[in-house]
Structure formats: C-alpha cells, structure tokens
C-alpha cells in the first residue's frame, strides 16, 4: 500500500493548469464551438489521470487507464452538445427558421449555429475573458476572477464531500454543514466587535467548528448506532435549514436589529475577507484558504497516518477493523474534518460573498453541487480543485448567458449533471464514440456505501 504516485499526481495536476489554457485542439476540433474553460478542466483531468500507474494494485491501475483523459474530454464535450441541443430546442430564431425548413434549410442551420455559438460565446465572455471590452482591462479580466470566486465555495465543499467519499461515507449534508457554519461565523462577524485581524480569524474558526460539529454528529451517530449517513445527513440538512431560519427571524439571535426581514445584519468591516486584487474584483482571501485546504486534504490523505486509516476504511472496513483500525473513530474523525471543509464554504458565503447580510438561502445549492464536484474530481484533492474551477466557470458564465442570450441559468445544472453521468460511465462514452475498451472488467470505483453498510457496527 505505498502511495508513491500521489505526489506526482498532485504535481501533474497542478502543472496541468498552465498548459491546459492552450487547450487540446486535436480533441475538440470541428465538433462544437468549445469554449476554452472546458478544455481547461479537461486538461486538468488529463493531468490528474495521465500519471504513471500506481504500484498499489492493478484495480486502481485499471481505473486510471479506464477513466482516461479522452473520456473526461469527451464527457465534457458530450455534455456541451446536450446543452446545445436544449438551447436549440428553445431558441425562437431556430423555431422560426424551422417553420420553413424545407424551402430554405440553410436558414435553420444558420439559426442553430447562431443560437449555440451565441450562447457559448456568452459563456466564454462571462467566465474567462470579456473580448467585447478590450479597452477596459478591468472589465475584460473580471470574468476569470469571477470564475475563481464562484469556484471557491464549490472547491471547499467539494473537498468535504470527497474526503468523506474516500472513507466510503456519502456526505449529502453539505447544505446543513454550510448553514450552521455560516450562522456561527455570521454571528461573530456581524455582532461581536473585535480588533481587525483577530476578528476575521475568530469568525473563521468559529464557523469552521460549527460545520465540523454538525458533520461530526453524523459520524458519531454512524459509529455509535449504525445510523445510515445518507439519511442522517439529508435529515440534518432540513434541521439546519429550519434552525437557521428561526435564528434569522429572531431578534437577538441573527436578525438585524430593527428589521422585519429574516436576514442578518451586515458583517463588520474587520471580519470581511480582504480582497486579493483590489476592490474592482470579487476575488478574496477565501480563494487562498481553499488552495491551502486542498493542500491540507492532499497531505492528510496521502502523507499522514490518519489518512492511511481513512483510505483503509474506505477500501474495506472489515479488513481495516481486522488490521486494528478503530472504524467508528475514523467515521467520527472524517466527518468532523469533512464538516469543517464544507463549513469553510459556508464561512466564505457570509464573510466573502454576502457580506451585506445573509438569508437562509445562503447555501445557493452549493451543498449539492459539491457532490458533483467531488465526483468529477474523482474524490482526489486536486481533481476536486479543478472540477470546482470548471463548475465555477459554468456558473459565472451562465449569468452572462442569461443576460445576453436569454438562456435560463438552470442549463448549468443540466450540463453539470450530464458531465458527471458521462464521466461516471466510461463504457457509455466509449460506445458513443466507438473507442476501444481498455479492459472489459473496468468499473469506475468509488468506495460504495453499500460496503460500509454492514460495517456500521
């Protein structure tokens, strides 16, 4: 069980960021107006999955070859084609032109190209570089920083979900952990004045502890009573939602004094994450914290004794128990850390994003998006990092798409889930593109919760 390949994995994953900007023209040419951010993430996966085979076991070797770079690129491509189909289906220009398709078919084709091209060009303008504003550098470069800002909570929450995955736990409780962490950090940030730097640190720590406790509760219940973590996390999401809703409409708790709306007061200046690139960009300290969190999770999983236990339990809890690992305590520990990571996303939302005061909808679906981020990142720290950036780009671009082309932002959810579905089923992608099968016994493998069910006690 050596883990010699993993630092390379991470190094390559990190290095992939720069070459990936150039894209992979060979993979994407002539199929669809692909925007660079897709090749960006594809390149990231390329880097993450194109590593030398690990000596651990043939199973993982198969997995990495099976989920090859081509599959990841093609999955993103397929998802964008599906997104394009949706756009075409609902575009008025296309519907109009299709009305006289048989007299002038070229019109329909042109309308289709206009609709899809316009949509994806808007996505590019909103997420990477706004080429319509070359005179104003701030406006031109803001989209890429928006992408990173949108990616920040996705990465943090994605890491929390991914870490639990590696132990074989399915952490659907992102929403609850975010809400509790946000409420705790928001209370400190808005109502307890403190000196500058200390305030930020205290608010951050209190929030992360809140998330950790909410997550650790799940691990404790699982370890002590065998309660199924999927059910407990789903239920705790709602408990947290109603608890925070109650606090937000109770004066003296979270509600802004003298207000009627269920909304907190604004964060004090001393508690707000400082901007990294000045006030004209939204990128702030949160992004640095998330990079540090990614490094920490990588270190934890690949370099620490605790991470070794985590992975051992994730591979086979029975074997881990026989080997002398306290499986119950691993469940508690991993859910504490996972809750803390998801909590970081919640803290970011209140101290970095909604600094003017937050409402109960502050999680903005990130708790669930985090699951897709973790899956796309294959539960590896750097994989999650780049998956988060891809989804952050989709999110940032979707608003431009809605404003410029009138395409509802919900299309991002569709594209996102198609990407994960295709990534999850390499045989399907191979069948569509008629690629050769590397090994017929391949199966994309995540520690399945079914295996941990019996290990509960």
């Amino acid at each position, binding site marked *: 069980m050596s883990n010699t390949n993993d630092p390379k994995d991470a190094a390559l994953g990190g290095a992939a960021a720069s070459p990936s900007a150039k894209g992979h023209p060979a993979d994407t040419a002539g199929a669809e107006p692909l925007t660079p951010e897709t090749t960006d993430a594809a390149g990231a996966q390329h880097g993450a999955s194109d590593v030398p085979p690990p000596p651990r076991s043939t199973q993982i070797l198969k997995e990495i070859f099976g989920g090859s770079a081509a599959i990841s690129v093609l999955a993103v491509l397929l998802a964008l084609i599906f997104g394009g189909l*949706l756009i075409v289906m*609902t575009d008025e220009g296309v519907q109009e032109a299709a009305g006289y398709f048989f007299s002038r078919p070229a019109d329909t084709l042109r309308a289709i190209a206009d609709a899809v091209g316009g949509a994806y060009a808007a996505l590019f303008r909103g997420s990477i570089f706004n080429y319509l504003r070359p005179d104003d550098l701030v406006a031109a470069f803001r989209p890429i920083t928006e992408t990173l800002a949108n990616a920040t909570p996705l990465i943090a929450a994605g890491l929390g979900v991914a870490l639990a995955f590696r132990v074989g736990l*399915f952490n*659907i409780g992102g929403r609850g952990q975010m809400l509790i962490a946000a409420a705790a950090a928001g209370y400190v940030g808005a109502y307890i004045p403190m000196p500058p730097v200390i305030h930020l640190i205290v608010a951050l720590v209190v929030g992360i502890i809140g998330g950790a406790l909410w997550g650790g509760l799940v691990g404790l*219940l699982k370890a*002590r*009573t*065998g*309660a*199924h973590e*999927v*059910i*407990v996390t*789903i*239920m*705790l999401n*709602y*408990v947290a939602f*109603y*608890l925070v*809703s*109650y606090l937000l409409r109770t004066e003296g708790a979270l509600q802004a004094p003298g207000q009627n709306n269920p909304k907190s007061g604004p964060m004090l200046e001393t508690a707000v994450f400082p901007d990294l690139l000045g006030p004209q960009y939204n990128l702030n300290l949160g992004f640095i914290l998330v990079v540090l969190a990614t490094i920490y999770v990588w270190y934890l999983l690949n370099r620490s004794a605790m991470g070794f236990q985590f992975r051992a339990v994730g591979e086979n809890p029975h074997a881990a128990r026989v080997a002398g690992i306290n499986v119950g305590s691993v469940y508690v520990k991993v859910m504490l850390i996972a809750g803390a990571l998801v909590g970081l996303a919640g803290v970011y939302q209140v101290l970095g994003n909604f600094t003017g005061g937050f409402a109960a909808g502050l999680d903005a679906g990130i708790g*669930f*998006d985090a*699951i*897709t981020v973790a*899956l796309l990142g294959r539960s590896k720290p750097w994989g999650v990092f780049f998956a988060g950036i891809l989804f952050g780009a989709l999110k940032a671009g979707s608003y431009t798409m809605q404003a410029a082309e009138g395409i*509802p932002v*919900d*299309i*991002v*959810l*569709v594209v*996102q*889930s*198609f990407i*994960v*579905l295709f990534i*999850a*089923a390499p*045989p*399907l992608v191979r069948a569509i593109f008629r690629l050769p099968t590397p090994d017929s016994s391949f*199966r*994309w493998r*995540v520690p*399945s*919760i*079914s295996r941990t*069910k019996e290990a509960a*006690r």
Partner: protein
Amino acid sequence: MSAVTTTPAPSTAESTSVTVRSWKAPIAFAIFTVIGAALFLGLGRGGDTTYRLSDGRDAIQLPALILPSYATGIVAVILMAAAAVGAFLLVRAARKVPLWLTTVFALVFLLGFLTWAAAGATVPLVGLLAGALTVSTPLIFGALGGVISERVGVVNIAIEAQLLAGAFVAAMIGTLTGQPMLGLLGAMIAGALVSVILASFAIKYLVDQVIVGVVLNVLVIGLTSFFYSTYMVDNPELFNSPDKFERVAIPLLSDIPVLGPILFNQTLIVYIMFVLVPTVWFALFKTRWGLRLRSVGEHPKAADTVGINVKATRFWNVLLAGAIAGGGGAFFTLAAVGSFAKEMTNGAGFIALAAVIFGRWDPIRATLAALLFGFATNLQSTLSIVGSPVPSEFMLMLPYIVTIFAVAGLVGMSRPPAASGKPYIK
C-alpha cells in the same frame, strides 16, 4: 442425526435473542416521555383544547370534543411512562417491542402535544387530518417506488427526481391535451424514464447507484427549471394550467363522521393510492413476482442459479418503481396545486426516502411513516394558524428529528435488502 440438527438450533436462538434485546426502543420511549413531561407538565398551559370533529357541510354532525389541556397532559404522560416501562420489561424478557405499542405511544404523544400546543384554541381535526393526507399522498407514492426499487436491489435516491419529473410532465401534458388522465399517464412515463437512466447506469454500466440517484436529482431539477423558464413562465395558459382532478365523494362512505370526508371525498389519485398500498404489499409478499423480486434483491446469485434473470428483473421493476413515483408527482400539479413551479417537490422525495428506511423497506410500514411525516408537516401549518407556543420552524423540523431518532434508535439495526446497492456481475 438428531445431534446434528439440534446443535445449530440453540446457536441461532441465541444469536436472535442477542439482536432482539435492543434497548433502543425503551430508551427512546423514555426520552419522549421526559420531553412530554417537561412540555405538558413543566410548561403546562391552562385552558381547554377544542377539537372540532365535523365540518358544517357534513351530513352527520358530531359535537366538538373539549379536552382540558393540563389534565390531558397528565394522562398522556402517565400512559407514555407506562408504555416505556412496558417496553423496558419486554426487552428485559428478551422480547420484541411490538409495532402497535410504538404506534400507540406515538399517537398518545401526538395527542398530548396537540392538546398542549393548541390550549385555549380550536383544532379543526377533519381539516388537519385531510391536509395531512394531502401532504402524505405524494410521499406514499414515492415511498412505494422506493420500496420496490430497493427490494429488487437498486438504491433509489432519485425519488425526488421522479416526483419532480412526474409533476412537470403532468402539468405539461395535462394542459396540452386538457385531459388530467393523460397527464397522469405522462407523469408515470416520465417517472419511468428517470428510472430508465437510473437502471441502465446502475445495471448496465455498473455506476454506483447512490451517485446516479444524486446526479439524476440535479439533472431533473435543471431540466424542469430550464423548460419551466423557457416555456411555462411566458405562456402559462398554453403550457401550465392543467385541469385538476375533481374530488369524487363516494356515496355513504363519505358520510361517515370524521373519517368520511378525510378518506372518501378525494381525488382519483388518492383512491389509486388506497388500492396501490395493499396491492404492492400483497404482490411483494404473496405472489411469485414478489418472491422473485425479493430474491434478486437479497441474493442475486442464488436467484440467478435457479434461472431468474437478475438484470431483467431489476430493470423492469426499477421502471415500475419510477412509474409509481412519477404518478405520485402528478398529485402535485393535477390535484394539490394546479400548476407547476420551480422545484415544487421541495424535498418530498427525500422525505419519501426517509419513510422507506423508517418503514424498514416494507410497503405498509413505509406508508405509515409517510403518513406520520405528512401529519407532522401539516400540523405545523395548523398550529401556526391556531397560534402555538412552539415556533413554526421547530414544528417543521419535527419529522426530520424524529427520523434521525428513529434511524439512530428505533430502527438503528434495521437491515436493508442484502444486495441493495450492489451491482450484479455474472
């Protein structure tokens, strides 16, 4: 020979007695008794609680039931304490705490709570229970779909997606054709289509079933919201104003006091549910189809050995489960609300999933669990009108907390179908 047969017998008896002697039920009873005592006696409220048993329109008028709040609380706490002691004695005698005792305990607690919370006010009992049934109906459909799917060995996290797809398609087709029946049919097909994705990914491509389920939920939310924004928002009269199912009062039965207007003055979908629950139970446990289905979910290899086609059985039954859940989704748009709205199922699929597990993968118990959750949700809206001392958020939290207690305490050792969640590879 006799020696050979008798030796394993004590060991199995011993192992069952070990698993049966679980102290969770008495402990949970005791906790709820203490909570009850603290609320009903410690924070006791004077005054009477009036339960209105009849609506003005009912054929047979019953007088209102008036309970003194504090006295009822005392009686409830005594009964609950007795049940807790009874459960304690039963477990010490290595016997199971029967389901009826748990049910009675829950009912007494609920009655005590309701009487305490609504002290000095009037509770429209018929409206409360009828509303609870309305909230519960989609939950029950979803739970039945979940039970069938999990019994055949495919974990169904996508109940939410099936409900939402059903609700959307029912609204769309119901409006386009003007026929609620066709809308219902479309909803069932939509639910089945969601299942096709679940089944093909889980069975053919061997992707982890929980993952497919979670992704399907996101996908269906995205798709329905996208089409809702592009079609329905601008042209509601063209795409989003289906004819609702009419309420049909069953003659005579609907005149029964209290129960009549609740159970027998309902829409077609609720009547379908009344038939469906016992049918699913009977089919699962008394027919060849059910035996095969359960064998595939418990031990696919054995089932395969005796000639059952595991993959086909799983595929078609997951489709059936999706169709049932999708039909439940139609209830939102064709009976309860009358139009589709973004993410209108609002987590009902997850409550249905909780009901499946709370109900231990049994259609009858899952239905009871769904009814309990529906009741608790509806209780909150009634109490907020009556004006209760409990903040409404805490009432809304109740089903979820109860479920956590149940999963951790009462059914902590519940066993899912053995092969649920595991793909079958020959």
